């Protein structure tokens, strides 16, 4: 696989079209919910992420709307699929692993058990200009989670 194909793995191209979790859905009464709008000024990509958590600190759902490149849109789709039933701490752990992978310049060997479809983004880490695209939804979900209230 050449570097371009590693960047645009089929799972990424598929998610960029399926856009799981998009568009935004209304919050459920009684659940903790938070929202974050993130913007990449370099390319104009933007995303609004909404998360819902129950009282046991488990994610119930993530929904989003955004406009951006295939990497940023696929990343949001993948995260929306992963997040339900995850605890806050599990998410923060996975975020750290994902961030470490993104900073690895292609040297990271992801554990698919842990990162699931997000492991496909390892190819992005060879393209420093695109790391921000992959991180956008994760950063938005983190900010939404930290600001969540009823």
């Amino acid at each position, binding site marked *: 696989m050449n570097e371009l194909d590693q960047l645009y793995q089929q799972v990424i191209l598929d998610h960029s079209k399926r856009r799981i979790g998009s568009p935004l859905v209304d919050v459920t009464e009684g659940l903790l919910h938070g929202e974050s709008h993130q913007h990449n000024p370099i*390319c104009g990509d933007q995303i609004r992420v909404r998360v819902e958590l129950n009282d046991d600190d488990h994610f119930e759902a993530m929904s989003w709307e955004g406009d951006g490149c295939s990497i940023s849109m696929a990343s949001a789709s993948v995260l929306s699929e992963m997040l339900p039933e995850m605890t806050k701490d599990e998410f923060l752990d996975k975020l750290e692993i994902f961030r470490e992978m993104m900073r690895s310049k292609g040297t990271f060997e992801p554990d698919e058990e842990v990162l699931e479809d997000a492991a496909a983004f390892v190819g992005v880490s060879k393209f420093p200009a695109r790391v921000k695209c992959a991180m956008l939804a994760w950063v938005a979900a983190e900010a939404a989670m930290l600001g969540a209230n009823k």
Partner: protein
Amino acid sequence: MYTLPNPSLTLDPRGDKATHDNYSEDHVQTMTGQPDAQVSLSAVEVQRIKADFEILEHQVNGTDVVYLDSGATSQKPRCVYEAEQHFYENANAAVHRGAHTLAVEATEIYEEARETVAKFIGARTNELVWTSNATEALNLISYSISNASLGRGGEAAERFRIGPGDEILTTEIEHHANLIPWQELAFRTGATLRYVPVGEDGALRYDLLDELVTEKTKLVAFTHVSNVLGTFTDTQRFVDAARKVGALTVLDGCQSVPHLPVDVKALDVDFMAFSGHKMLGPTGIGALYGREELLNAMPPFLTGGSMITVVDMEHAEFLPAPQRFEAGTQRIAQTHGLATAVSYLQEIGMDRIAQWEEHLGAMLYEGLSQIEGVRVFGPSDVRRIGTVPFEVIGVHPHDVGQYLDSRGIAVRVGHHCAQPLHRALGVTATTRASTYLYNTEEDIKALLEALGSVREYFGV
């Protein structure tokens, strides 16, 4: 004694000169479609020019680099950075101070560079102020007007004073550098910012100009050539409208000075900003042209060393322009590099470069328009430089740029520092190809060919 190294041109200077003298600027204006072989550069000449650019001989991602991002910054011929090196090895010293030999030589080089660049745009030597780039040049005007509006500059600065009730006019196609300094000036002074909008195709609404320019208008800022669309502004209409009400005119020459013959006196503008790095020069050097009487009446922006006559603990008297706007130790090697770039361009001939790029621009516009699934932005049937923005329908510009990069083709993606124009065009980002004198027809063909397979790759 230090002497300017000859640009490493391999062209036949006599042949070029004969061609240059025989043709006027009119040929540039009437040029459409195929290049006129007698005026435009020949393919062979372009190949020879390309050989002066070391970086264009390099490979990117295993293939020869096709550089189509000169609108962002140009590549530099060897003679430019060799001139800078030569300066540091032979003549480096602070200018306009010190009596030692190196200081005298450095000052001569610095002022010779000013003369060369001023002549290049048809200005007098004292009318060219060095700045770090065009952005600083535009901010210089903005802050000098602020200072005048606070009362600085005495009676002479009267015509620079603006305040509540006054208006500043710009356009919707501007680069952020020719927009935000005016927004900020409006905030600081209480003046109102207005703008000439664009139509759906990105063409300026000149029909609204008479309505927008009124007795309240104190300054009109507009670009010569759009950095996104590559199209020309009808500068005469802006100048005429501004003159009628006594407003100052500020021209953004960033995308015109590198690509075509520009004469500020013929354009009849009051100020013009341009950057060195887009015209084969080093980064960190740009210039502001201003009419001599205006520059000498305008209070300074940056203050400090080298711009004064007499200083006591309460006051300072300022030097006349251009020194009054050149506080602190200046970018001496960079001015020398830029002057060398200008000599290189002059030896080839700006009218011939303009012809060649207009040909490449037409090739780009027509070629892109013919690719299925590619939408080209900007009005058709107008004069343009070799700059064309487009979108591949269904594929984000960032992904288009990445795909092209894998084939060694460098283009710009994003909003190109012109978010309002993109919003008016109904998109957040575009892909932009932009040429310069070293681009060949093969470069354009490589781009067009690669674009033919983008949608298939992304499964659109």
